[in-house]
């Protein structure tokens, strides 16, 4: 027992790069919120809480995540149910659940629960994975996707679906199956467009393909975002000096479009710095995934890392105009507690899995 308490499971590379990233995030947020100190302070509390959670989560042996994966998924569903029944409606979407003074976006939990559950479900299966296992996995993925999509929250729903699909892919899904699914997806796209997508989501996608169609309406966000980034140039306009940001031409500066703020105020060099920090974290995570102690940990680290990467890339592509606008925060930078806490949670799991050595071979 003494020995157990003396050792702190800790990854210095991830810890310091996340510290740098979160610190920069608070710095950027100060400018993005038009120097609103209370917003930064609140976010600072979340960051501190996130680090504490990450360190706590990384202490127990990762076996606990495997054993509790079913419970975790059920707990996530329960929370989503509560959200559906009692959650307040904000901007036409029911995403939040209140716990005391805090609100939490319950769908964030699924980003963790789905990959862990699937990893647990698949890690001891023979290769290649059998059809009924695939079918069951896909059913879970689609169910989770659908309930979040109905909130409606397309961004998070997509990330959840990706998180599951990544695990499925990494665990050895056959290429022929994937090819077949892709054909099926393309064939069913008219159905998805007409029935599944909400009118505003269709509008966003249409806007993406015709960005000059409605400069003061649907295309406003993306046009202003590109103007903000483009006008930053090589060195940027300086901290708090971005006219697009400070004069509110840029929408959602604190959340989805905070990257545009960075682009405007810190220029191409700022963007390079930021992207290299992300790249470093991703490289480290892949290294850890490849060297994980067993298949379960591999799958979980791989799944969570890829989820993080997908989250990052979708946000970046969206604000620079390479993808249609979907609600998706920039990890560790955007304002918001739920996504930040769940990210720290995920990294806690990754650190736990990469630092605990296996005592006995299975």
């Amino acid at each position: 027992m003494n020995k157990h308490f003396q050792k702190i499971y800790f990854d210095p590379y991830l810890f310091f790069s996340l510290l740098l990233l979160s610190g920069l995030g608070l710095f950027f947020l100060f400018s993005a919120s038009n120097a609103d100190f209370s917003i930064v302070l609140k976010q600072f509390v979340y960051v501190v809480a996130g680090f504490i959670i990450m360190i706590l989560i990384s202490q127990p042996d990762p076996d606990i995540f495997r054993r509790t994966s079913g419970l975790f998924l059920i707990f996530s569903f329960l929370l989503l149910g509560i959200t559906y029944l009692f959650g307040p409606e904000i901007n036409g979407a029911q995403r939040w659940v209140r716990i005391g003074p805090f609100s939490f976006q319950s769908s964030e939990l699924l980003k963790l629960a789905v990959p862990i559950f699937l990893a647990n479900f698949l890690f001891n299966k023979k290769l290649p994975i059998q059809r009924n296992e695939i079918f069951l996995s896909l059913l879970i993925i689609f169910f989770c996707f659908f309930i979040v999509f109905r909130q409606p929250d397309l961004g998070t729903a997509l990330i959840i679906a990706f998180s599951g699909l990544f695990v499925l892919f990494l665990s050895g899904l056959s290429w022929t199956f994937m090819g077949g699914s892709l054909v099926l997806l393309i064939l069913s796209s008219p159905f998805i467009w007409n029935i599944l997508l909400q009118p505003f989501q269709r509008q966003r996608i249409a806007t993406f393909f015709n960005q000059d169609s409605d400069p003061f309406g649907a295309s406003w966000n993306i046009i202003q975002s590109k103007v903000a980034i483009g006008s930053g140039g090589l060195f940027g306009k300086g901290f708090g000096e971005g006219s697009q940001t400070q004069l509110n031409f840029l929408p959602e500066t604190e959340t989805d479009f905070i990257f545009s703020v960075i682009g405007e105020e810190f220029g191409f060099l700022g963007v390079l710095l930021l992207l290299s920090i992300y790249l470093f974290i991703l490289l480290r995570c892949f290294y850890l995934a490849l060297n994980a102690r067993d298949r379960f940990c591999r799958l979980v680290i791989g799944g969570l890392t890829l989820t993080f990467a997908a989250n990052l890339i979708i946000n970046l592509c969206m604000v620079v105009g390479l993808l249609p606008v979907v609600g998706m925060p920039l990890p560790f930078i955007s304002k918001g507690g739920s996504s930040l806490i769940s990210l720290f949670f995920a990294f806690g799991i990754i650190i736990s899995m990469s630092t605990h050595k296996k005592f006995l071979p299975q």
Partner: protein
Amino acid sequence: MIFEERQIEKNNFSSRAIILFVIIMLSLLAVLIQVFTLQISGYNDYQIAALKNKNYTVPVQALRGEIFDRNGKVLIKNEPTFDLITQPNLIDDIDSFLDEIQPVIFLSESDKFQYKKLHKEKAFANKELVLKKDLSKKEIARFNVRSFNFKNAFIAKRYRRISEYPNIFSHVLGYTSRTEDAYKSMPEIPRSHWRDAELVYAQGLITGRTGLEEIYEDHLSGIHGERVYEINARGKLVQSLSLIKPSKGSDLYTNLDIEAQKSAAKFLGDRRGAVVAIDLDSGGINVLYSSPTYSINQLSNGMNEDDFQILINDADKPFFNRALQGRYPPASTIKPAIGMYGLSNNIVDWDFEMKDPGFFTLPETGRVFRGWRKGGHGKVNLQKAFLVSSNTYFFSLAYQADIEELSNHLKSLGFGQKVCLDCFDEDQALVPTPEWKYSIMNVGWVKGDTVNIGVGQGYLLVTPMQLANYASLLAKKGIFNKPAIVTQDKLKKPLKIWQDSRFNDSDWNKMHQALLGVIESDYGTARSIRDLKEFEVAGKSGTAELVSLDSKEAYQEVRTSELLRDHSIIIVFGPMPNPKYAVSVVIENGESGGAVAGPVAIEVLKSLINE
């Protein structure tokens, strides 16, 4: 799981993870390339787009130049007052606003009515609307104490376009009025921004509409400045970024003479007519007066609708500029021109004599053209014909003229064309030709038409401006400057306007002698004005018949209707023998040229000479 299987699984995982990692790298690279495209390649475009978003340029109104008379006395100036200005877009309910502000600023019912009307019409055009002009000190103090109650109103210094002589100079100076199209002059500022212009005039954006204000608009209006504001996404002004100051319009120095213009107005009185006076040294127009008149101060600074309707409906047509647009038969004042034609075409010479029986009979048809004096003037030569204004002599002379040549001769003297260099809306009046008559009336020219021109009746019509120009030509023996209101340096050198090799200096001297005699001799038709002055004056009077009549008895019947009475006309120049000024006067329905128009011309001359 056996060891090999685990190894296969691990390899399988690694290769798939690497595939995904490569996809992630490629995606990040795509993002980086896109950011590079935006920030490095597209920097200029996006920088401009960002500036366009936040920079909002509004014009800053320039003060107009002021206008001065030839002695440097101001004719039109910018007069500052403190006005109560409202912001129509911030007023939700006009009535309650007016009720609230009523105890602070005194408002009459018509003030309120006028304001409501303007509010309805102009609220969208301008961000400012003046509620009350020229506040008293008391009102300013009262408002300042309560200003926090009125977020939609403020007091500011605003200018008005004011003339000390608003009525006598109305036609020549002209008025300004609010304009909606000032943006044309500054295309770099979008039209929609003009509503946010920073104003210096209570009337808002103004432009010259008539007179010098219109003719010299570019000279007077100055250059509007530009203020660049930073605005936020909601269009709210955040701060002023830069200001290019407006440059005030240039002042205008004219040849006008306040005292002479006053004389013209005073001696014309409330009769309909016009006076034009020209400085013979420079061609400068000293007097340009048309009666009746109106107040340019009222028109420039907001005239109420009732007063405006009264002016519009006035039968005497005060807006009509008789000096430049009134078309009158020149009557006997044309005789010097006809004499010049006769001499230079060898139809007559100074010695030629004929008998004047009081009428002229047209040989072709037997039609009789009567003189003004029953029984005629006996034997007349050219000199006497001028003095006694013998119609018969000039009927007979014109009878021998070729109408085309005569028309060209009259045009060469400035008739039938615009003669003033900078007059607003000058009329060219009419020198008739056979083509003109045929095109208008569809009948041919007859000899009688030419005969009528000999005494300035018939189709020939001239303006007072043209008469003054003609008087200058006569006074300066053909070498003079074209008339201009504003002093123009380049025109200092006299231009040869009229010359004819067959009309030499001795002819000119005899002409001057004859025209001097019209006023100064015992036989002259205008001798009644001889004693009104202490200097000698040459000239020619005329009485323009509006109805062609055979006898004086018939005229007595006609003159009971005032508007059918003869026009009284005179041209004079003096002091002789070296004339300095030429004057023309027309008084509508004034009768008897010399006795009625003459004194006005002499008074104007006196004002000009005594300075």
